[in-house]
């Protein structure tokens, strides 16, 4: 059968239309394409009907053991994976609402009269991001936390007219690598790139070494911003206010990057501790982990920086009859108008994922967000206590943590322990030296394991992890 369900045209339709167009055949519509440029042979991809397609995809799906189960734990692992993506419980209503066609088959809201749904939802998203991160202005979202961090640094360079960035403490290696790729676009040589980027290490408590930062800032000029992850890559909660003061004393901006925004349910948000720009990864609160994407980058800044913000912005206004409505605004920052002079080349925002985030935050609400954070905190402290008590295990950093922490495993080989536990359906965490983190990971301590805990983990789950770790570690 050659008729396809997504291609309505019958042979009769085609014949009639060709008559109107004035061409003898469909091929005649392509006759002006020079022979030299034409495909030399037909495409070699086999077609599948729906049944065969779902069987094929189902087979591919079955070749993985998901970290997060759909309904119950059946078939899924017991997972403590974090390190950039911490999956939370997403209530059923979120995905059900997301599947309304008016949401997911709609386009960018360039025509406001027929897109008020999307525009108002983004306005609400911007409000929520502003509240969570504690800064007055938030955009309609970036691609993910890592690229949002890169864009924040580029923005700091525009605002200050300077070109250096200092990474303070343990920042996620993928965020650093992403930043490096973006910065390399501006640096003509490898030497220039190395000159632009500085790193300050951590103290014994796992936090960024403030004294070292002060020293570093005193020794170089031309620093656009200091970047700190909050909580940091090892899960430790930073003293952002202290770092912000050091940055501001040298005329630099303070940028925070966050992989786990639920932290701000119990810890002071970046805006309250002196951050000028704050970004975060929102995927864990929006959709199931989906192998890491699509994510949603939250981006907020001081009010006076609004015209340097990358990405889309939705603003409130009125129509000609005085009714409240919403429009994309301050578009003159963006590529479709400024072209070469745009604040960024970004075009898309993460629309649907931002919507999922907004719906979830509406369901959680003021009390639920705090409650979720408190659950994460309490369960993490419980697990930390249990692991610290295991012979040969140690918590290397004294600084306070939220829902992720580093633990030294007995025997010195976290990668081996994780592999063994994976065989029995436990994803114990992400080894700091895991190859899957990227090239820079190999420089991390081999005995360090990053463990993430959320409201999803029962006390029994935490007890089981502790017991199995004790069993499997040498």
């Amino acid at each position, binding site marked *: 059968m050659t008729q396809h369900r997504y291609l*309505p045209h019958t042979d009769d339709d085609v014949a009639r239309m060709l008559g109107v167009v004035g061409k003898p055949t469909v091929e005649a519509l392509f006759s002006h*394409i020079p022979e*030299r*440029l034409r495909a030399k042979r037909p*495409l070699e991809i086999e077609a*599948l009907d729906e049944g065969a397609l779902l069987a094929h995809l189902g087979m*591919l*799906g079955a070749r*993985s053991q*998901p970290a*997060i189960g*759909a309904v119950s734990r059946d078939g899924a692992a017991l997972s403590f994976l974090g390190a950039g*993506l911490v999956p939370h*419980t997403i*209530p059923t209503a979120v995905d059900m609402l997301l599947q309304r*066609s*008016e*949401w997911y088959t709609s386009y*960018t809201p360039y025509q406001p009269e*027929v897109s*008020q*749904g*999307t525009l*108002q*939802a983004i*306005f*609400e998203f911007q409000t929520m991001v502003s509240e969570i991160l504690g800064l007055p*202005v938030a955009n309609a979202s970036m691609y*993910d936390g890592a690229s949002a961090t890169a864009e924040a640094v580029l923005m700091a360079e525009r605002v200050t007219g300077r070109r250096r960035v200092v990474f303070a403490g343990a920042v996620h290696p993928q965020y650093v690598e*992403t930043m490096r*790729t973006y910065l*390399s676009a501006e640096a*003509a040589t490898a030497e220039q790139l190395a000159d632009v980027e500085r790193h300050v290490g951590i103290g014994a408590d796992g936090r960024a070494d403030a004294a070292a930062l002060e020293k570093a800032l005193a020794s170089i000029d031309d620093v656009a911003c200091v970047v700190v992850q909050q909580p940091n890559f090892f899960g430790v909660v930073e*003293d952002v206010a202290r770092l912000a003061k050091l940055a501001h004393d040298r005329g630099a901006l303070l940028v925070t990057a966050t992989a786990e925004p639920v932290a*701000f349910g119990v810890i*002071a948000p970046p805006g309250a501790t002196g951050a000028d720009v704050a970004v975060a990864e929102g995927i864990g609160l929006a959709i199931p982990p*989906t192998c890491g*994407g*699509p994510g949603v980058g939250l981006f907020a800044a001081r009010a006076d920086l609004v015209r340097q913000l990358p990405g889309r912005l939705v603003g409130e*206004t009125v*129509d000609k009859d005085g009714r409240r409505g919403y*429009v994309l*605004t301050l578009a003159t920052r963006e*590529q479709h108008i400024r*072209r*070469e002079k745009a604040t960024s080349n*970004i075009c*898309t925002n993460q*629309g649907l*994922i931002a*919507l999922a985030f907004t719906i979830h935050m*509406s369901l959680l*609400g003021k*009390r639920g967000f*705090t409650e979720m954070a408190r*659950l994460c905190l*309490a369960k993490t*402290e419980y697990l930390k206590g249990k692991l610290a008590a295991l012979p040969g295990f140690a918590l290397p950093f004294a600084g306070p943590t939220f829902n992720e922490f580093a633990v030294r495993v007995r025997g010195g080989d976290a990668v081996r322990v994780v592999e063994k536990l994976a065989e029995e359906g436990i994803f114990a965490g992400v080894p700091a030296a895991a190859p899957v*983190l990227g090239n820079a990971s190999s420089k991390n301590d081999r005995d360090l394991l990053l463990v993430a805990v959320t*409201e999803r983990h029962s006390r029994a789950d935490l007890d089981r992890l502790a017991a199995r770790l004790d069993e499997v570690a040498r």
Partner: protein
Amino acid sequence: MSDRTTKTGTPIETRHLLHSSRPIFEQGAPGRSGASLPPLDVPSVDPAALFGDGARATAAALPEVSEVEVTRHFTRLSRWNYAIDLGLYPLGSCTMKYNPKVNERAARLPGFAGLHPLQPPSTMQGALELMWRLEKCLCELGGFKRVTLQPAAGAHGELAGVMMIRAYHAHRGDGAKRTKILIPDSAHGTNPATCTANGFQVLTLKTGADGLLSPPAVKEAIAAHPGEIAGIMITNPSTLGVFEEHLGEIADLVHEAGGLVYMDGANFNALLGKVRPGEAGVDVMHINLHKTFTTPHGGGGPGSGAVGVGAALEPFLPTPTVERDDSGHYRLEFNRPTTIGRLRSFYGNFGMFVRAYAYIREMGGAGLTKVTEMAVLNANYIRARLVEHYPLAYDKPSMHEVVFTDKRLKKETGVQTLDVAKRLMDFGYHPPTIYFPLPAVTGGAGALMIEPTETEPPETLDAFCDAMIAIADEAHKDPDVAKNAPHQTALRRLDETRAARTPKLRWTRE
């Protein structure tokens, strides 16, 4: 005038039962919640005890509503949106084709949705295999040696592509000299923005009088900057909807000058099975999975911008790549010495990979070729029906989109593209693209860029053309109707000036 017909008697068949829903922060009551969280089964911890001054002082002022109110709010809001599932979106260069439902089911399979990107690769072989297979399919479709799936959107893919071009020249010791990229004036705004972001200087090529890029213009630009050309960024078909017939010659000129050819693949829907750009002189091309390959537009995202490369740029691909061993085992490869690095966390918009892969496998090679044929037929049908009412920007054959101008309409009636766009809403359509291409390219006139895509039945095209003709007729009889349009929508002509002059970008308690 009855609001159910136009002045010329054409019926308007849209009606609404539409509820407003105030910003969610204005709904609910203190203490309400829609959360369902487990009880605390471990000892409680006081944040102040652990964090001291670092604890959060006041809770984020998120809404306080029940699930009922949330459901009603987002259901009501959704009904204010136009969507593909409601009707035609004739938006040029956006490829608003039907979003298959089986793709949504596929993406939600637990073996895909439940994967954490950092779980041991041996536990996610299915996902790695899907990525590998999708890459192979896109190589087959585009004529490329390799494809990276990492970029999150088209513009992100452009960034990757131009970065690779930059790395290529730097690697050959040429980086300091090759500082310029040629871009036609008809290009999408992301093109020059991407080049500037990479430290390149943009040399603008004027579109020829026939709407095509001309080899002499390219030759002249190259000659004026000997040894400085890093490459050219072209769109094919161009944003005017016409096939760049001189692509072969232009690619030769640029290659001879030591540069590389970047193709913006936004219009790939016009080429499937007909042209494989990698075999036609293109060194790198980004592919919008959310255009040609049906991943949903979602109200503005997420997209997914895969980038295909030939042998010249393969060494510079972002990491990690997905590789397959002889034993059929899949792995992530991070050890690529000349990679440009990574542009984001993890591997890309995996949820979109599943959908695009499902679509490609459902259609197959012959099906995708028919996609292009019907897309081009549909655009040409609209062209044939409307050409007497709206002049074309250029006379060259249209591919998958057709560009009309408002030149005659404006002169004869004062009605412009913006007014036509707003009046189309009254007929139940989303307007075509109107702010693009720029007037410089359309002879100073406003543009109407129309891309119907292949998933539109002929009856829809006829109804749309009837509406466009009715609007043109009505403009001659009573231009004020269009100038004051839309009349049917619940909100009309929102004040964008006010939004820009006094930006109010979040809800606040007054």
